[in-house]
């Protein structure tokens, strides 16, 4: 205690006022490291040469004062106080070779590094903010021109797509008659319908080719289909007992007559 009071006596009035301002203003601090950095300024030395021991004592005094003034300190500040008290004892006592872990000097050096780094960040932050800035010192184009976005669709295909496409058509082509050429097919049902209406008049032998649908003999494809259908229909009618068929010789015309 005596030592601490002695220290305080050493401080100038201005410094004491500053220390009190610290406490009153505790809410304005950005954490214990910030307090330590502020306290370190009273040492008026390069942060690399700072006395961490003295700083620890200043911090502990700051926490003590805050307690006296019944100022609630956040847990962070108290953790730092406890740690600094520990550090202080490490720095004051001769090192115990049996003890594990970093030495007091190592811990102090790291704390000094942290303070220096934080100070450095603050310095460069200030330099950064003091730079010429867009919208304050220099300016962008006031009337930017709209860039119209043109969306273009480009179609693509590979040679493989092309060949596969062609192959697909040609393959389908080979099956095509099953679906495609109905207009050139005369079915047996159609032939039967037609002949049933006509055979009532077939009292005498008539060539079955006369029962072909009109106009189907010009196109060879249609003629072939109609011939086949009419022939099949004739056989069907004979089977039903409705007509009789005859043929003079092989490949001779086939003739048909109503069966009474």
């Amino acid at each position, binding site marked *: 205690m005596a030592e601490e009071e002695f220290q305080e006596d050493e401080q100038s009035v201005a410094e004491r006022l500053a220390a009190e301002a610290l406490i009153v203003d505790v809410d304005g601090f950005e954490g214990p490291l910030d307090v330590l950095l502020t306290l370190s300024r009273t040492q008026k030395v390069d942060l690399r040469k700072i006395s961490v021991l003295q700083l620890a004592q200043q911090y502990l005094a700051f926490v003590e004062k805050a307690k006296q003034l019944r100022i609630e300190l956040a847990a962070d500040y108290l953790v730092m106080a406890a740690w600094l008290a520990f550090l202080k004892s490490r720095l004051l006592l001769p090192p115990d070779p049996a003890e594990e872990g970093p030495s007091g000097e190592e811990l102090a050096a790291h704390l000094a590094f942290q303070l220096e780094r934080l100070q450095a960040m603050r310095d460069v932050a200030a330099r950064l903010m003091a730079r010429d800035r867009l919208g304050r010192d220099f*300016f*962008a*184009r*006031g*009337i930017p*021109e*709209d*860039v*119209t*976005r*043109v*969306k*273009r*669709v*480009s*179609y*693509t*295909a*590979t*040679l493989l*797509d*092309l*060949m*596969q*496409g*062609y*192959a*697909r*058509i*040609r*393959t*389908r*082509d*080979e*099956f*095509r*008659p099953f*679906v*495609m*050429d109905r207009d*050139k097919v005369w079915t047996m049902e159609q032939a039967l319908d037609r002949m049933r209406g006509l055979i009532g008049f077939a009292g005498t032998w008539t060539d079955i080719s006369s029962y072909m649908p009109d106009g189907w003999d010009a196109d*060879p*494809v249609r003629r072939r*289909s109609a011939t086949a259908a009419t022939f099949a229909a004739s056989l069907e009618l004979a089977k039903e007992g409705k007509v009789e068929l005859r043929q003079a010789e092989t490949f001779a015309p086939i003739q048909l007559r109503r069966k009474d």
Partner: protein
Amino acid sequence: MMSEGMEKEEEEGKGEQEESLFEAPPIAEQERMVEAILFASAEPVTVKELNDRMPHGADAAEALVHLRKRYEGRGVRVVKVGDAWAIRTAPDLGFLMQKETVETRKLSRAAIETLAIIAYHQPVTRAEIEEIRGVSVSRGTVDLLLDMEWIRFGRRKMTPGRPVTFVVTQSFMDHFGLESARDLPGLKELRAAGLLESRPPPGAMPQLGEGEDDEDEAAEGQSELFED
């Protein structure tokens, strides 16, 4: 218009700007100021406004003359808009003010098939394409292929109605890496390459209309390229 001598004098005057707080800055400096103000302003700026914003004694109108000259033939120009001034893109570079995004899409199946038929059977009429594909060909498909410059109109067929024909173009050859349409593999090769599979057994195929369609009559040219 300024004489050469004047311009020189102004150049020399530049260094003195700082001291002469109540004297007008040299004209070169005024020109810089007008340039910066016109650039940064959201709207065209009148000469009066320029003078109001520039240091006392400056003559924006004169600075504008210099600035305008400086931008002659450049990518942007100093132009008068009503009674105010602005910097604008040179009219011949307007085409740069659009950003083209290209979306690549696969050609539709209908388009590929139509294209393939044209390539293999050219010159070919729309009716022939429809006959081969077994479905009608939409106007859009043909237009797309014409638009892509992969097909073009060929000579008219000497058949009733004189229908137009389609042929493939040089761009088509370039795109598909072909020297000519004759380089397209024939059906045999397609089959050998496994591209033609489901071939029906011979004999299951009714021999209807083989070679007797009237459409075949006029189709000279490509048909001999292909088997079947």
